[in-house]
């Protein structure tokens, strides 16, 4: 498997524009891509109600379904997309996958309208750290538009309009 582009997604309507842009990038570059879904059940930490369900397994199935939908979108555009579901902390899992698959480009999307949990600030923080650790390109999307890239050669974040990050 020669996968160069990794796109982290949660699926759902809010993710469609970012998925489409990631697919477009893969098509332009003529590379295979991989959609990654990371589930995390930390949201259950504050509930006292009995958790007798294997909720992680349920979320794995949900994640796979979300990724299958993304895979279909890629297939419709003639792009080969693989899917991967992992459990755990966002940053740690992402780091493992980058290393494990020799990824060259990571595409991350922030939630549109500020309603989701993956905000631009959150992505900025983790991308800076991951960029220091892995020598790969990071592209940050919002509503299908590139808002920031972290290039391999410079190592600095750069906004889509070419302004370097201060």
């Amino acid at each position, binding site marked *: 498997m020669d996968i160069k582009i990794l796109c982290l997604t949660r699926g759902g309507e809010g993710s469609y524009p970012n998925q489409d842009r990631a697919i477009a990038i893969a098509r332009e570059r003529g590379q295979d891509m991989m959609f990654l879904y990371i589930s995390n059940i930390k949201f259950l930490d504050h509930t006292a109600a009995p958790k007798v369900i294997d909720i992680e397994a349920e979320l794995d199935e*949900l994640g796979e379904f979300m990724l299958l939908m993304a895979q279909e979108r890629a297939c419709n555009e003639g792009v080969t997309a693989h899917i991967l579901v992992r459990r755990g902390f966002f940053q740690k899992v992402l780091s493992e996958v980058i290393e494990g698959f020799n990824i060259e480009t990571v595409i991350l999307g922030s939630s549109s309208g500020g309603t989701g949990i993956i905000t631009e600030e959150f992505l900025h923080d983790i991308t800076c750290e991951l960029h220091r650790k892995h020598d790969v390109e990071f592209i940050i999307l919002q509503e299908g538009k590139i808002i920031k890239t972290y290039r391999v050669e410079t190592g600095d974040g750069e906004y889509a309009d070419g302004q370097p990050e201060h």
Partner: protein
Amino acid sequence: MNFLMIIKRFSPAQIVFGAAIAAVLLFTLPDVIPGEGLASDQPPPNEGDFVVIGQVKDEQGIPVAGAVVTALTLDGEHILAETECQEDGTWRIFLVEVPQEELQISIQHPRFIPMSLTFRLQELEDLDDLGLFQVGELTLNRDFNAGFYAATLIFIGVLLLIALEILHSTTAALAGMSAVFIVSYVGGLFDPGFFIFTFERGLSYINWEVIFLVMGMMIIVAIIEATGIFQWMAFQAYRLSRGRTWLLVLILIVITAVASALLDNFTTMLLMTPISLQIGLALGIHPISLIIPLILASNIGGISTLVGTPTNILIGAYANISFTDFLVNQTIGVILALIAMSAYILFHYRKEFLKKSAEISPALYQRLEQNARMEDPQNLWKAGTVFILVIIGFILGEQVHLSPAVPAMIGATALLIWLNPDVHQMIIAVDWTTLVFFMALFVVVGSIQEVGLLGLAASGMAELIGDNLPLGIFMIVFGVGTLSTVIANIPLAAAMLPIVQYLTLLIPGAESKVLFYALSMGAAMGGNGTLIGGEANLVTAGITNQTNTPITFKEFLKVGLPVTYITLAIGFLWLLYHF
């Protein structure tokens, strides 16, 4: 064969379950066996002794346990005898001889203003003639001292810690329990007014029937859930609806409400949310318009049975309301509330529901079918049989005053033996944090009951309501319902139980336990008011967030709040009509 050899034949897990069954029987059998219990609380009087008896209650008529009753000579210098009030507030003092002068009885309790009574020789004639003197029922007045304020602050603190998600609910309840004992034992050293209760007294507030019923149901539900029956039903709903979104939503509402009544609302939403999200997204429907109705249905549907919501389990155990009682007295009200809720939902999301749903691709359909498959039909048959027997056990058990915890624990054990699942997995499936939460919460609520906060609230409500039962039902349904929109409904219901009990004793016609049913409806329906009103709401929002489909506070409020007051009104009218 000695005891150790017998024990070695069982795995540690089997021993744990055996011990649990033994414990639940030990705790509940005294209720089943008619008579005064296994052992008498007080020694019989010795022949020739003179006995002075009485009973101590608080302003609400609730027996005061642990008050120290002392018989003194008139000058108060010589103690003739001393005793402690029992759980029912009664006390007996044995005197060696009838006092030559007057007799003084002093009653002291850290939470009450001390009382002293003097009896003249003339009044003590009975004691001389019969050897028995009845003082009768005495009412102690509360002393709102440091312990009262400390316990009140601790309880409010626990509610805030839970509501603001500063600590996990269990940690918050444990912190509250620890604070109560620190105040009692450390604060009590400096000022006796800080003393709330002893450790033993605190433990007496734990309702073990609730703990064992919840534990038994957790095991049964974990086994039934593993069969995949509810996901399969959701998929069948999708197939039956043939692309008509409004029909899909209505079928899912019915499935969710029924599942919620049989399992519990929280578990139901954990099961229904992922599959419903998949169906919604695949059909191109905004998934939130599918998920929010299910949350509302789960909170309402659970009201109709004893095991449908944690608050019903609390109410059932406290007020001795059986599985059949809940079913008979609540179900029609619940159905009416569900119909009204569905009508509002169809109106609110009419644009979304009238949209033509997208065609689902064969690959996605196949995956959906795979995710909704029944895991093991053989196990489903066995689990279903045991579950029905447990329900029958609930119903038949009522005839002999058997706690529902007993059939639940026996059913859980039967499933473990019959299905032979990985017992260690099943023990992991028992969510111990929930059980610890209940135990710690009982102690914290016990502390505010002990210091008289609940009595004070009960007196205040009684003054407002007077003899007007409809007003009482209205106040509990809407008052608790409104509070439940922002306060965690389990601590709220636990705190309301003694208040409702007091009102039940006071208001004519309330002996039908209608106020407890009002509490059940208010606590559960109120949870629909806001996103933070119920744990099922929050966990569903957590799951939808995982697919970048967040349920916002505002979006939930727009649907949940009107539905809350519509259903509360229906619940109130139903109780008014039915009782």
